[in-house]
């Protein structure tokens, strides 16, 4: 899908003339800047890039990108983007969504886009709160969260977005953080290169309604002990001194965190994003606790599976390949097919 362009683009080329209107201090600014800076290296002409969004703070994103873009309906971006992507395989189609947009009102479209493996790059800005409607709990808010609509604490169990995406047969699943530009760009790079649906959860701070939700993952004094930076082909160790690691517990189903000193080196899991069985990536997605300890970031899963777009386009191409007539001749033949009779 990428093709060299005559003039090398820069971040500035991807900035639209619109005034950015997120709250000062919002994590969305960092994500926008990171993406504008990262887009030129994809070597995809601006006119072949489309951002489609739903409704919510994050969904204002397309207005600020100097590409094609559509700010659509709450929850429906994956459906609209599916129609665009499958009918226009020459385009690079990105969906920008939030936790309410993607996981609540649009949950159905998200899971079906992922299972079909539509060639979409889906960026879910997860701030664990409804921002644009001013502070109700979201489907990723913690149980017990006090918000305007849950004064006695939320009774809902939250979704784990990555577990959900993996259950929906996603072929690419990753996670990153708004404040870590380098990491964010590395995950997006891998997502952009992936053929099919790429689902990326971006932890994003809402400084107005849920400030500090991911502070432990950002604070220099805690982040190294909390974050697991997944690197394909590398043993999974973390902590300031590499003092923690991830192992398959004997007799267990999932993965567990141990002290590196307490296990033999060969017991440490070597990260492989290409494992066919989604159970591995799923186990990774279950590592963090409510306190954000043991939060993996990076590419959890990246497996090859034909994209919906490519299968559909191949069917079209196969049908068209047999055609020898002009469209008008074909149409005349179609209209006159079946039992006909002629009156003179």
């Amino acid at each position, binding site marked *: 899908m990428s093709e060299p362009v005559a003039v090398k683009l820069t971040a500035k080329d991807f900035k639209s003339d619109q005034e950015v209107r997120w709250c000062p201090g919002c994590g969305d600014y960092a994500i926008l800047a990171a993406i504008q800076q990262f887009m030129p290296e994809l070597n995809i002409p601006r006119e072949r890039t489309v951002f489609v969004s739903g409704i919510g703070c994050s969904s204002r994103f397309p207005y600020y990108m*100097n590409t094609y*873009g559509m700010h659509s309906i709450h929850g429906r971006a994956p459906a609209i983007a*599916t*129609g665009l*992507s499958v*009918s226009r395989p020459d385009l690079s189609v990105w969906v920008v969504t939030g936790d309410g947009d993607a996981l609540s009102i649009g949950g159905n479209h998200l899971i079906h886009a992922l299972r079909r493996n539509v060639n979409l790059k889906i960026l879910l800005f997860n701030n664990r709160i409804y921002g644009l409607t001013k502070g109700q709990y979201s489907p990723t808010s913690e149980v017990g969260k006090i918000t305007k609509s849950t004064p006695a604490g939320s009774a809902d169990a939250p979704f784990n977005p990555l577990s959900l995406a993996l259950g929906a047969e996603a072929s690419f699943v990753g996670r990153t953080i708004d404040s870590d530009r380098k990491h964010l760009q590395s995950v997006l790079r891998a997502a952009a290169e992936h053929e099919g649906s790429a689902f990326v959860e971006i932890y994003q701070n809402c400084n107005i309604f849920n400030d500090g939700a991911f502070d432990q993952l950002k604070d220099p004094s805690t982040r190294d002990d909390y974050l697991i930076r997944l690197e394909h082909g590398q043993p999974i160790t973390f902590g300031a001194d590499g003092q923690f690691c991830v192992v398959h517990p004997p007799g267990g189903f999932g993965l567990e965190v141990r002290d590196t000193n307490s296990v033999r080196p060969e017991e440490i899991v070597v990260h492989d994003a290409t494992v066919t069985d989604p159970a591995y990536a799923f186990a990774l997605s279950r590592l963090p606790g409510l306190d954000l300890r043991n939060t993996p970031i990076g590419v959890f899963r990246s497996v090859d599976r034909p994209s919906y777009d490519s299968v559909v386009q191949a069917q079209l191409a*196969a049908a068209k390949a*047999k055609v020898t007539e002009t469209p008008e001749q074909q*149409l005349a033949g179609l209209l006159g097919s079946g*039992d006909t009779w002629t009156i003179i």
Partner: protein
Amino acid sequence: MTKQIRQLDRVVIRFAGDSGDGMQLTGDRFTSETAQLGNDISTLPNFPAEIRAPAGTLPGVSSFQVHFADYDILTPGDAPNVLVAMNPAALKANLADLPRGADIIVNTDEFTKRNLAKVGYQTSPLDDDSLAGYVVHPVALTSMTVGALAAHQVSKKDAERSKNMFALGLLSWMYSRPYESTLRFLERKFAARPELVAANVAAFKAGWNFGETTEDFAVRYEVKPAKMKPGTYRNITGNAALSLGLVAAGVRSGLPVFLGAYPITPASDILHELSKHKRFGVLTVQAEDEIAAVGAALGASYGGSLGVTTTSGPGVALKSETISLAVALELPLVIVDVQRAGPSTGMPTKTEQADLNMALYGRHGEAPVAVIAPRSPSDCFFAALEAARIALTYRTPVILLSDNYVANGSEPWLLPDVESLPDLRVEFATKPNGEDGTTFLPYLRDPETLARPWAIPGTAGLEHRIGGLEKADKTGDISYDPANHDFMVRTRAARIETIPVPDIEVEDPDGDARVLVLGWGSTYGPIGAACRGVRQRGLSIAQAHLRHLAPMPANLGEVLRSYDKVVIPEMNLGQLAHVIRARYLVDAISYNQVRGLPFTAAELETTLEEVLKNV
């Protein structure tokens, strides 16, 4: 024995049986044979929503009515002259529709004590005098079919299942139908199982020969070909015609057709049909729900396809929010609503015209769209082309209101010359349209059509963002300016109101009618037949039929006001009448039925005569 041959000008036959008896197929084949003969035809299938309701019960009865004549006809006929009843349930469910003197062919094998009890017959109606007013032909259809296939290598079950071909053979003999197309059809249908071809052909011939030899059928009938315009014809249902119309719209516009659809009765056949036409570049997506179906269609339109979504009333309700987005985005979109009886699941296999209000008004905000409705099965082809024309030219959603009656009914269709179909080519925007020569203004309108430029992704230099937020005139930037919103709302309304649509034509052969009957959509046939009946009695009446419901023809008000009385028959509680009264201050008389069935010409005729008496 030489049988007497009697000439008839028209016949209505109803084939009725259990859902599994193959009555739709039998009716379909009889129709095809009849079409080959050159009669004019109109058909009406009537089947339950259940795929296989319990065998032998009243809810499981499926029927197919075919009306054929030596002149042009407008409806599938009010009352059958002949009923083929494959079991007691089929007899009981349909008897009330039969006029006295009608022929009833019954499959006596199914009139067992158990089957009679299932539908509440204490005694067999074949044995008491309850059918005394009819001409009953008792035929042991099942056992004769099984007997005829004794030498064939088929199971007893397959032999019994061939009884519909026996019935078809008998009726084909009775009405002197050519059967070659049926034999060809059987060869195609059972190509993989030659033994079934042989069995079905044998059953058909056994039925034919039974008619020829038995004394119970003393008379054979002929219906001469109708005088029809020269040309090549095929018999076509509304759903098939609509599908072909969409394919034709793709060819004539040069755009790929994209269908996003979710299965729903009675619209699914359009999805099935369009899925076959990939060689035309028609791309179909069976979406996860109705909302995704229209969303995908809109996304495809944004990318430069002719986006289409097909559904029925409940589906339109779900799509409403996306249709409003399409109004705001000003992109082409065709929404096909094959109406069925509602509300909610209602009677999904029965017809109704009760989605007009929803089509005209069923959205949030001021969200006008164009609305058109086909008047007959073959007209669905042209209505689809017209919907595409309006959508593409004026960059707007168009709702096409078909209904179950035209969708599943069929009639002969004079095949149009492809070159005579409208030219639907469109031009995408290719360069900046701002005065400075470099700026692109996505909401700068064509002064004539008020359409905005269609700048599809992939076009360098025209990168722009659109969305559901209100847009500033010309630039398309987000705008909360009060005056701008007022202007944009009025402009969107004007965009639809100023679409030029053909004037409504009035049919008044006597030229002195004082009463006008106004209809829309699928009621054209019954209203036309009723008007003919009225005129045959020496009375004058005028008929006009609306194809465009939004915008309405410019001359409509003048036409309405030139009659003393206006009658509006509808299969709803007066939705068009309400609009007409509000828009034109005309005291229209509303005549309504919501029985899930089309009007009969006879009942409309009676109603119109009552009105005429009081002029």
